[in-house]
């Protein structure tokens, strides 16, 4: 069972981060964060960017943990696959959430 978790964890973290950021985007638009100023940017942009960077950090840690001798799988095969799916999670977070820094927010 632990090995199954190791294989699924990377994409699962991505899915949570993706849903959370999309949810945050909805809430932020509903409460008008796009028009609140924070350090020269909109509060919305700051909050979403922070959430994105935090997700990236969590996934980077996940990949490192899957590599580690202590938490990584004892089976070479599962180790290899789980590291691959861990990278999938990290790359997917980078790829699917980068719009937080480039596109218009609530239009």
């Amino acid at each position, binding site marked *: 069972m632990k090995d199954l978790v190791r294989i699924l964890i990377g994409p699962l973290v991505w899915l949570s981060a993706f849903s959370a950021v999309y949810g945050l985007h909805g809430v932020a638009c509903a409460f008008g964060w796009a028009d609140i100023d924070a350090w020269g940017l909109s509060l919305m942009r700051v909050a979403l960017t922070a959430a994105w960077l935090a997700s990236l950090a969590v996934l980077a840690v996940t990949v490192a943990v899957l590599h580690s001798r202590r938490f990584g799988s004892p089976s070479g095969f599962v180790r290899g696959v789980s590291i691959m799916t861990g990278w999938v999670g990290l790359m997917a977070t980078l790829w699917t959430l980068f*719009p937080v820094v*480039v*596109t*218009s927010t609530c*239009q």
Partner: protein
Amino acid sequence: MLAGAGAILALVLGLIALAFTRTGPGTERVWIAGMGLAFPLTVLAALLAYGLFVGERLLPRQGADVVSVQAEGRQWAWSFAYDDAPGVVTEDVLHIPAGRPVDVAITTVDVIHSFWVPRLAGKLDAIPGHVNVLRIEADQPGRYRGASAEFSGEGYADHEFEVIAHDAAGWDQFLRGGTR
């Protein structure tokens, strides 16, 4: 986009055809890391960036000469109202000035419809309780066909309308109560 898709299709089918004639390098490195990962990532990144750029440009931004109209769908007709001519309502015909950006505020009184004038812009849905704004612009005066593009029951096939784009003089005349 079509040419690119055709090229990729030809590449894939070519590789499959070649497999019947020769036994080649069967390494994971070439096939999976190279063809499977690097190749699509490059193509897709370019495509995504292009799509987002165009999408940004199509957004309704504020501007001096933007005309605002309202579109209200129902089974199976459209009513249009005009900010510049309060009280005027036209049925199944939307009048707009040519050469100026027009913001259409879209909603519905019953089920979901979709406002679509293929030659002027993409489509946007009319959803109960929500108002969606679509930016359209006609370069030339003329008549453009529009249709609802969301299945709405029995009368769906005939749920169509027309957009008339006027030149500057015609638009003035419309606002003053001329062509209705």
